[in-house]
């Protein structure tokens, strides 16, 4: 099993390097002067030249890339030039990350607490009204763009619960709406998959044998069905984590949460390339790590997988 993990980690690192290079090179496709911000229009060509050289933007691409990797290994994500000129990106990010983590973590927790039981309930009441209602909910969440129903949650939620529409770090009540928004997608996701896995297990032969043994229904549910249905769920956790993180981009901006997601939108609008580069990199990284973690978790949880590696595309 260790071999498998090592292999996966190596592959993840490799992917990371390739993706980093791709992002870096893609961003260099943009007109180089853009790195200097809107102000560059007013500068003389000579000043522009000097500034570009200073920042190393005129060097050949592979040199720039090498420098970038080097910086990365030293934990330096670069410097912002427009958003907060000449401030190290890592400094800008530092206070924002805990905020995003807290909200994201709470959202995941809420999604698990609501989504899993909903899925179980739906599978047990298959075909009856809880199943139908749940399916309606899932359809709505999946079909209608989150961007749309978040707006309405913000609007009507704030008036219904008498909280401000915007997030304030001190007032926990303002945390509720953003967390609810971030968790909705996952509640639907968990409920849908949990239901599917439960239905699969409920029809399994070993359940029939357990019934034939004389095990009471309740114990069959808790000891066999639910346990077994939960195992494949573990594989979904990283994707759901990703869902939350991507969702946070929009939610944070909407509710003015001073986190990483809101930052991304800000810097896109201000066209600060280095910041966009750094943030995109981080998100890509999170994606890779998440999937890696999921695979490792699965191999731990399912005794059948421990000995063989999973080759090929997922």
């Amino acid at each position, binding site marked *: 099993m260790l071999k498998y993990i090592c292999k996966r980690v190596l592959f993840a690192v490799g992917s990371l390097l390739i993706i980093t290079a791709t992002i870096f090179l893609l961003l260099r496709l943009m007109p180089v002067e853009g790195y200097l911000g809107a102000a560059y229009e007013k500068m003389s060509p000579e000043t522009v030249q000097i500034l570009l050289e200073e920042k190393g933007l005129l060097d050949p691409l592979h040199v720039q890339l090498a420098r970038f990797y080097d910086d990365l290994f030293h934990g330096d994500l670069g410097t912002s030039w427009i958003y907060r000129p000449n401030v190290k990106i890592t400094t800008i990010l530092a206070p924002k990350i805990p905020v995003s983590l807290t909200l994201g973590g709470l959202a995941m927790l809420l999604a698990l607490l609501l989504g899993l039981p909903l899925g179980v309930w739906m599978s047990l009441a298959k075909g009856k009204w809880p199943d139908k209602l749940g399916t309606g909910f899932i359809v709505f969440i999946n079909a209608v763009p989150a961007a749309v129903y978040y707006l309405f949650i913000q609007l009507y939620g704030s008036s219904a619960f008498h909280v401000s529409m915007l997030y304030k770090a001190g007032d926990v009540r303002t945390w509720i709406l953003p967390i609810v928004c971030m968790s909705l997608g996952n509640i639907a996701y968990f409920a849908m998959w949990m239901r599917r896995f439960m239905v699969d297990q409920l029809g399994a032969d070993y359940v*029939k*044998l357990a019934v034939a043994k004389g095990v*009471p229904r309740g114990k069959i549910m808790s000891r066999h069905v639910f346990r077994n249905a939960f195992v494949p769920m573990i594989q979904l956790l990283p994707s759901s984590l990703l869902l939350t993180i991507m969702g946070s981009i929009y939610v944070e901006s909407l509710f003015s949460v001073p986190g990483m997601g809101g930052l991304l939108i800000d810097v896109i609008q201000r066209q600060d390339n280095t910041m966009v580069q750094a943030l995109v990199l981080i998100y890509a990284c999170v994606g890779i790590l998440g999937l890696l973690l999921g695979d490792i978790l699965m191999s731990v949880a399912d005794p059948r997988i421990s000995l063989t590696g999973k080759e090929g595309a997922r």
Partner: protein
Amino acid sequence: MNEPILSVRSLDVRFTLRGRLLRAIRQISLDVYKGESLAIVGESGSGKSVFTKTFMGLLDQNGFIAGGEIFYGGADLAKFKTEAQWRAIRGREIAMVMQDPMTSLNPLKSVGAQITEAVALHSRLSSSAAKGAAISLLADVGITQPERRFHQYPHEFSGGMRQRVVIAIAMACRPKILICDEPTTALDVTIQAQILELIKSLKAKYDLTTIYITHDLGVVANVADRIAVMYAGDIVELGTANEVFYDPRHPYTWALLSSLPQLGVKGEELYTIQGTPPSLFAEVHGDAFAPRNPRALKVDFVARPPWFDITPTHRARTWLLDPRAPKVEPPAHIRKLREEGAKLREK
């Protein structure tokens, strides 16, 4: 003769499927005697599994007993309504071994845990005592190093070993009747004999009554005292193993035995039964096998034949046994069997 341990009277089982009604069991009456080994033979879809599932209340959600009685231990199982009633029977009085050992066991639980679960259900042993019981069960079914194997997972066992585990689970509470639903179909031929021997030895050791459900006549020849031949939800012939093998009377039994490759003559075409079993959605008039029987009588399409006794232990549901029916010679292969049977009796 023994007294019957289980008595079925006019059992009628139906299923609702996509809004239509399907008659799976068409009023079967059967006695199972204590300590015997009964084999129920038939094609897929004849209703053999459904029949035995009613003894344990394991019918699918869309199935129900529309009529009849199942007498066991002084109670009528057909009238059971609650889970609690069934749980007193399942495992404790009647146990079942199912076909596919690969999927019968929970892949994420150790084998020992699954046996202990069965043990703990029907006794008040402490967990360590239950574990001990489970380990001795493993030894009973012929698994070596049971203490080590106790902790292993199903996928670490071979097919044959897994079936032994399933048998151990079934025996955990010393049931009186053991139903084996195609216990060897999913196993290699070499393992099949071992498993059958195991069940036989357990039967002897614990004074079990065994019911085998199978389509494999080879298995039947190995284990059965009595044979019940099922077709389209009804028993068409019932008798001791010798009687049914060497002196079959129902055309379907003839056809079944004739299709055994062993009976064929080298170089001849293999015998096959024409056609397919009837759809059980439709009403069946008369003898269900009639449409596939080239030697059917007109009356076979009119009314279901009653039981005709050939010997006190051998009966068949066929109009051919009615005194008014013409004399029909069974196929060549069957005649050969008759001769062999006669020879054996002389010895």
